[in-house]
């Protein structure tokens, strides 16, 4: 127990990320099921309007910040150091700090479901209720007087610190800790996409931090950053949020693209087609992602010139995305494709992401978007990208790397059940939403009249959502069963080309008994140019020192939610306690003897 609380081992932290993020994924999923149950028929009244608004806000916030990002982070943690031949990340204690901040931030946000009585709210739940993009000026104190939005903005501030710390950590790790000979163009695609993602994190999160700080000042100290009566404009929030929000979309999708780029070659027994192009198009997407934010704002009326420019940049970003898809198909072409569950999910990613990408092109056209934005058509789009894309990609990664992480293979039979149920479920849940939106149902409505004519489609969508829930249950059974019944994985159950497969599963605490020297992009494969590398010996030729754990990252992390409680409860002394805990944690951390 103590060893898990104080761990600085990237592998253990990766597992902590995985289980925590998966728990939040289940919470976000339950929120979605309640939403779908409410909308199964017109004039539904399972939950009140207020609770419904909290549900969709928390579903979006949870899935983006507490499920998808940290699930990717679990692979960054576990796999990236193994792929580059490192013993750990560059700053192991900072890594632990990132995890604890994430956990505490997530608990802080979700505490809002239960603490209504403490705020004399008259309800149990005072969860955030402004939508996951929390548009000002609805989020100002005047229109949202309760603690709901306070939970949201303070929670996101806490989570931002976790993401930023991890971002710097992984950039330094990937740039500096690569094994000898692993030049940048020999880095596996997943690690490359991780690197691009982390650059997006460290550049995009400061933007939302500023936006949230303005909102915090408005709500707590009476400033007027988003108040038009004082000469400002609520549109500023939209620019700041989407300037963060669009890169955030790529923060969510690029890791999944990286996973797919590693999974496909392994199971097609063929190198990634156009590796260089796939890498550069990922970098290009990272850059271009900064120039498209106003396509979330076409209905704001920015004027025909701005609309045309943002329309053009948005359409352009489809080009590097399309290039990736063609390269993936070319990777499969001419291969010897083994239909493992991981491959199913990777191919599912491509097939579903295409739909999300194409509906994205219809949003890129502002006049068409005026009929689509803020309707269920957009809800369909975002779910084809983030569920059909990111979740499918993450499950490909789970089935692919779970044996590496635990030493046991997940059941392929249950895996296929999981895949097909999820595939059918997601299409039933999300495809009808295109029509629901085109027929005039806006998003974020807790009820709709039967006259709209969308009752049947909504029922279909609800059935799909429950099928997804069933598929996730199958996965959970698979996960539990594998603990005891899973087939032993050995070093390399798939015949992978990259370094993580050259060591035991799960790897020893020091990862590599001898740091490998890398001579090419596919070190463990035989190609026309080279023979496979020799895997490192099972036992290290010389003892390897492994640093011990530390309590101080967790202590420092604990200071942040205490700090956040101060404005939330309007208790000044808590601010001093929180600051003291944070500073004590950092101080003890900084002066901790190296050989603990």
């Amino acid at each position: 127990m103590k060893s898990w609380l104080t761990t600085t081992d990237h592998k253990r932290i990766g597992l902590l990320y995985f289980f925590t993020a998966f728990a939040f994924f289940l919470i976000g999923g339950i929120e979605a099921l309640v939403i779908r149950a409410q909308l199964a028929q017109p004039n539904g009244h399972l939950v009140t309007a207020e609770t419904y608004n909290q549900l969709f806000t928390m579903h979006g916030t949870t899935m983006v910040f507490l499920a998808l990002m940290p699930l990717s982070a679990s692979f960054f943690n576990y796999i990236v150091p193994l792929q580059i031949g490192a013993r750990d990340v560059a700053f192991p204690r900072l890594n632990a700090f990132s995890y604890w901040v994430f956990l505490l931030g997530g608990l802080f946000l979700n505490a809002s479901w239960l603490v209504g009585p403490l705020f004399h709210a008259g309800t149990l739940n005072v969860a955030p209720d402004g939508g996951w993009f929390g548009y000002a000026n609805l989020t100002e104190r005047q229109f949202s007087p309760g603690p709901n939005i306070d939970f949201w903005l303070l929670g996101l501030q806490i989570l931002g610190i976790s993401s930023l710390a991890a971002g710097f950590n992984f950039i330094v790790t990937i740039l500096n800790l690569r094994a000898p000979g692993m030049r940048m163009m020999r880095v596996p695609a997943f690690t490359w996409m991780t690197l691009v993602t982390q650059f997006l994190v460290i550049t995009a999160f400061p933007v939302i931090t500023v936006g949230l700080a303005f909102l915090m000042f408005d709500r707590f100290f009476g400033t007027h950053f988003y108040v038009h009566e004082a000469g400002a404009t609520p549109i500023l929030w939209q620019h700041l949020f989407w300037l963060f929000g669009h890169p955030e979309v790529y923060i969510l999708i690029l890791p999944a693209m990286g996973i797919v780029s590693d999974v496909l070659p392994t199971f097609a027994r063929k190198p990634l087609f156009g590796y260089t192009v796939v890498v550069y198009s990922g970098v290009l997407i990272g850059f271009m992602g900064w120039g498209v934010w106003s396509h979330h704002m076409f209905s704001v009326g920015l004027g025909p010139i701005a609309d045309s420019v943002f329309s053009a940049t948005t359409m352009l970003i489809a080009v590097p995305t399309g290039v990736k898809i063609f390269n993936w198909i070319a990777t499969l072409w001419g291969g010897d494709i083994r239909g493992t569950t991981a491959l199913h999910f990777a191919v599912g990613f491509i097939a579903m992401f295409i739909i999300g990408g194409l509906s994205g092109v219809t949003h890129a056209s502002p006049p068409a978007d005026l009929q689509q934005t803020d309707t269920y058509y957009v809800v369909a789009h975002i779910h084809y990208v983030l569920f059909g894309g990111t979740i499918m990609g993450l499950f490909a990664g789970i089935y692919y790397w779970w044996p590496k992480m635990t030493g046991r293979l997940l059941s392929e039979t249950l895996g296929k059940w999981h895949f097909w149920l999820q595939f059918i479920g997601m299409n039933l849940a999300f495809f009808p939403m295109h029509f629901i939106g085109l027929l005039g149902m806006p998003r974020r409505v807790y009820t709709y009249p039967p006259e709209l004519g969308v009752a049947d489609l909504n029922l279909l969508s609800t059935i799909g959502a429950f099928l997804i829930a069933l598929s996730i249950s199958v996965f959970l059974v698979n996960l539990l069963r594998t603990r005891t019944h899973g087939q032993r994985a050995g070093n390399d159950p798939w015949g992978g080309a990259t370094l993580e497969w050259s060591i035991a599963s799960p790897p020893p605490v020091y990862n590599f008994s001898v740091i490998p020297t890398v001579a090419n992009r596919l070190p463990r494969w035989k190609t026309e140019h080279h023979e496979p590398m020799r895997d490192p010996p099972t036992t290290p030729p010389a003892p390897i020192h492994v640093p011990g754990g530390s309590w101080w990252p967790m202590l420092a992390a604990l200071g942040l939610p205490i700090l956040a409680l101060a404005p939330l409860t309007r208790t000044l002394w808590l601010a001093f306690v929180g600051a003291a805990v944070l500073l004590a944690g950092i101080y003890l951390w900084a002066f901790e003897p190296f050989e603990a």
Partner: protein
Amino acid sequence: MSRYRWWSTPAALFLLGCGGPFPQSTLHPHSDFARATDVLFTGIFWWAAAVFVVVEALLLVALVRFRHREGRPAPKPTHGHTLMEIAWTLAPAAILVFVAVPTVRTIFATAGEAPADALKVDVIGHQWWWEFRYQELGLVTANELHVPLGRAVQLSITSADVIHSFWIPPLGGKRDAIPGHVTRIAFRPDRVGEYTGQCAEFCGASHANMRLRVVVDSDSAFGRWATVQLAGPAAPASGTAAERGKAVFARSACIGCHTIRGVSPGVIGPNLTHVGSRTTIASGLFPNDSAHLARWIADAPSLKPGSLMTRMQPPLTDADIAALVAYLQSLQ
């Protein structure tokens, strides 16, 4: 030309099987603006459909043709192909030109500038209802917008509180209602009828209940409607329930928020001068009948969560409510 081009997209075709009618459909345009966006969407849709079929087919062929078989020789380790990379970079780029050009043309064609003789209406979003001000006619109404057939309409949209979005799908795409900003849409309706829409930007507890109606009248019907609206409020005959209702209205909190011309000056809630002429109450939520009016007056927040029209303290008696209902219904 058919009334609507149901064949225009397979989506519409699919929906034929699902019945209808679809009063808020974007696929059944009834104005020049809505038609322009629909034509554009249809064009993009077909490009997208073509790309979808080609790419998914390639994927399926690859999966079937190159699936693992015993004895298949090890695949050739190809690493890439420069010409192919160039080809599949240029192909989508070329298709996007066919999307981008009509897009930009439509952006400028629908930029919200209407001809000089357009009927200009100011639209103001409130939590959670819509106010319409006809500057040229000097009249104010709420939640039901009347416009004449065949004349261009220009809406100048803003908000009194938070951000809303004005949307009547059959007549055209949405524009946000933003405090401190004025956004515009212009359209020329091409069929007499009643269209529904609703707020599309999340605006708080009753966002789902911020609905509206647009009535496209023939020229003469619009003239008659405007004449009625311009007249002063009907004076109830003495001794009627309506007269008692007027007295209740005048001594209750109603006057703080609602305008009835010559009776009260409130501006927070909808103008009630001709509330009896509207077909719905509570921003399109309920039919304008005695039962719903009575329930609404007695306890609006239970019908519309978060409604700023709170329960009156002390509560009105049933007799007072009945009188108020009679009065409001007399305001034709």
